[in-house]
């Protein structure tokens, strides 16, 4: 690769790559993000290449791209230029796709999406309600680029924003643009990005750093993974622009260890940018020097907290420290440091390219732009969803997500990971932005939306999060370390039917104390799952305590399994599977479960083909 010496060379480089591409050419965009890989996208790609070779269709390119978001239907494939979407593609389908669609020009009906609400087949990607109801500014690029190809990024207009900045904008102008756009941090707290940049720029000292937080620890959130994995150059470009505005010469991307593909693609992108001279010294002849290092996390949730993250980059234990001083004053190795997360950085080139005025027309009065949400749990269309901030939660859940599957009822939506909270079904019309969610005790967090139906027990969920946080607490503050453990004890007592109403009072008191007396974000927000479930689902807690009943049938100590003698055929399948040998009965006669031996693992229920095992 040649080094680009100035912005005119950058544009020339783009032009030569665009000229090589014919707009009407045929190509296939195949998602090979971690989600689709899990459902066999790698094998689909290989099969497709084999079949294309066999059919001698050399002009059709198979592009292995990042995640377009519709993970539920993976492996996903879009055939261009028509834009036909095939879902749940298997390697066996490859021959058919080549023969019928690419050669014959026919759409294969079995592979297209069927809208469950209308039972209509939808052939084109753009017509699928899941996509058509979104506003995809960031995610829309994922299926267009091969994350390992910098040329692809150039072809969609990549690094034009960097060129614009280095070709005449001053740092103050860049900061002003970001401020006027109204961009706020996408990592959770929603701090205005431009203000943060300005503070770091103004901070004393010559050595400054920029950091990209890709330690997306919130379970149920994977938008940062998808962006860094699917379009790493967009994050690099954002960081370059930020570093220029702030006056930093070194940047770090801190990626969690659980995202190996993101680490790989980001590392490659940095190498490519260095080869092109977009990282290094005197970038594009502007006398701006900047380089990026990739640091891999090692599996600690607390490292998503900015001060812990910086400690980890320094090669230490990821333990948070007291703020102030904020990182913008004293960060990495005591120098002013600006930390933003992946999605925030990815928004920067967009703002520079299209302007602050355009950007600020999207979103709600207080929260501008779009936000990517991870829609997961008990929802029909699981995946990544990008909508303008301020969109009603109900539009996301029903309009895009397709609602709860089966004939179950929506119970609540958990927002913002372990530190977030519940939005109960009755408040489903809340506009999703930083302030809207806060009003109901939840928070945006990184944007995970875990949908729960009536088979989810709220006390169990509170227990789940407490367990999670207990494991992840770094142990520095007593109230966090001990407080979470005591809260977990109390909640466990409730799920076992051993608690009294006084315990509930104690739980609430403890939650408030932990909230008020811990140092970092993890501890401050640790009681949120308990407090918000209590706020909206107190009767459920009381039912566990007073009636010793778990309506959702989740809390093991409060449920029993029994076999319906009318339905049981006596096949013995459950008895064979039961790990405790608790099921007995003669062949071809109804079996019974010994409640004393039963550990309520539910294996018998999943084994029974006749629906004879019940839970109550």
């Amino acid at each position: 690769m040649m080094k680009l010496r100035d912005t005119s060379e950058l544009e020339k480089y783009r032009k030569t790559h665009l000229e090589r591409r014919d707009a009407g050419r045929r190509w296939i965009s195949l998602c090979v993000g971690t989600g689709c890989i899990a459902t066999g996208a790698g094998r689909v790609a290989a099969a497709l290449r084999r079949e294309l070779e066999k059919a001698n269709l050399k002009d059709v390119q198979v592009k292995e791209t990042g995640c377009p978001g519709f993970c539920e239907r993976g492996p996903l494939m879009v055939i261009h230029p028509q834009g036909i979407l095939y879902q749940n593609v298997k390697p066996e389908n490859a021959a058919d796709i080549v023969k019928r669609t690419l050669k014959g020009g026919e759409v294969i009906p079995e592979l297209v999406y069927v809208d469950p609400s209308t039972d209509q087949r939808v052939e084109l990607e753009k017509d699928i309600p899941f996509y058509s109801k979104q506003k995809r500014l960031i995610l829309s690029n994922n299926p267009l680029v091969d994350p390992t190809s910098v040329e692809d990024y150039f072809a969609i207009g990549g690094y034009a924003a960097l060129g614009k900045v280095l070709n005449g904008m001053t740092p103050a102008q860049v900061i002003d643009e970001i401020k006027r756009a109204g961009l706020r941090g996408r990592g959770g707290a929603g701090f205005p990005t431009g203000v943060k940049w300005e503070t770091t720029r103004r901070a004393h000292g010559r050595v400054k750093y920029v950091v990209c937080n890709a330690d997306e620890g919130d379970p149920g959130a994977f938008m940062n993974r998808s962006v860094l994995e699917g379009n790493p150059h967009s994050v690099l470009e954002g960081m370059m622009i930020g570093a220029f505005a702030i006056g930093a010469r070194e940047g770090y991307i801190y990626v969690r260890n659980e995202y190996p593909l993101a680490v790989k693609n980001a590392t490659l992108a940095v190498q490519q940018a260095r080869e092109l001279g977009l990282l290094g010294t005197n970038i594009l002849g502007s006398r701006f020097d900047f380089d990026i290092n990739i640091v891999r996390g090692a599996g600690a949730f607390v490292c998503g907290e900015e001060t812990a993250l910086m400690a980890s980059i320094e090669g230490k234990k990821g333990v948070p420290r007291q703020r102030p001083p904020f990182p913008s004053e004293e960060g990495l190795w005591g120098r002013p440091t600006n930390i933003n997360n992946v999605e925030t950085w990815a928004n920067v080139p967009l703002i520079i390219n299209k302007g602050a005025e355009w950007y600020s027309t999207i979103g709600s009065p207080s929260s501008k732009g779009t936000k990517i949400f991870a829609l997961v749990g008990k929802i029909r269309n699981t995946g990544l969803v990008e909508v303008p901030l301020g969109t009603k939660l109900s539009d996301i859940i029903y309009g895009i997500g397709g609602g709860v599957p089966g004939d179950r009822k929506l119970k609540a939506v958990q927002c913002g990971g372990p530190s977030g909270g519940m939005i109960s079904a009755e408040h489903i019309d809340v506009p999703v932005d930083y302030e809207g969610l806060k009003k109901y005790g939840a928070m945006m967090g990184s944007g995970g939306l875990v949908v729960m139906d009536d088979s989810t027990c709220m006390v169990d969920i509170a227990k789940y999060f407490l367990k999670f946080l207990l494991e992840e607490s770094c142990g520095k503050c007593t109230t966090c370390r001990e407080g979470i453990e005591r809260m977990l004890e109390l909640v466990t007592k409730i799920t076992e039917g051993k608690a009294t109403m006084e315990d509930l009072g104690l739980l609430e008191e403890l939650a408030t104390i932990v909230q008020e007396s811990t140092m970092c974000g993890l501890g401050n927000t640790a009681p949120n799952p308990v407090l918000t479930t209590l706020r909206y689902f107190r009767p459920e807690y009381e039912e566990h305590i007073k009636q010793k009943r778990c309506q959702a049938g989740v809390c093991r100590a409060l449920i029993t399994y029994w076999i319906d003698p009318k339905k049981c055929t006596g096949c013995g399948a459950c008895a064979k599977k039961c790990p405790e040998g608790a099921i007995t009965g003669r062949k071809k006669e109804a079996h019974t479960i010994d409640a004393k031996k039963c550990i309520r693992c539910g294996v018998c229920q999943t084994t029974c083909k006749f629906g004879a095992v019940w839970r109550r």
Partner: protein
Amino acid sequence: MQMGETGVRERRALRPPEEPAESRIDEIIEKYGGERRWLINILFEIQTEYRYLPRKALEYLSQRMDIPLIDIFGIATFYKAFTLQPRGQHTVTVCLGTACHVRGSTDVLEELQRELRVRPGQTTPDQEFSLETVNCLGCCAQGPMVVVDEEYHGQMTPAKVKPLLSAASKKV
């Protein structure tokens, strides 16, 4: 919990963990210029080499890099990705993220515990399987998710556990 009698695996001969070679550790330190800030990466590479962090390797590292052994142990035990116990031939990781949890990952984990007769963080006595849990892999759409070595398996159920383990057993 009492373990059932349904283990699928035959016992294999105990394979002694490899003795760490000082020259290999020197190479790793060299690669990072011996800089303290790359300690976590250095530990990662040592772990890749031996599938765990051998005590001897850490002692040598402490001496070579002039970092107190207690600090190295502090880091090795703080981060979940590191283990001081030899890992098995295959690592089975169960995702316990929220999305997987509401879709029944606990049942999958319990079935794995029954089959392998170990708890999360432990390795079977024949050194074949290590059982691990993780808080989220970010493939929530396909949950419950189980990763065997580097292969992802989505939509897991307790019933799929046994075939998954025997398939892994055949691969070396």
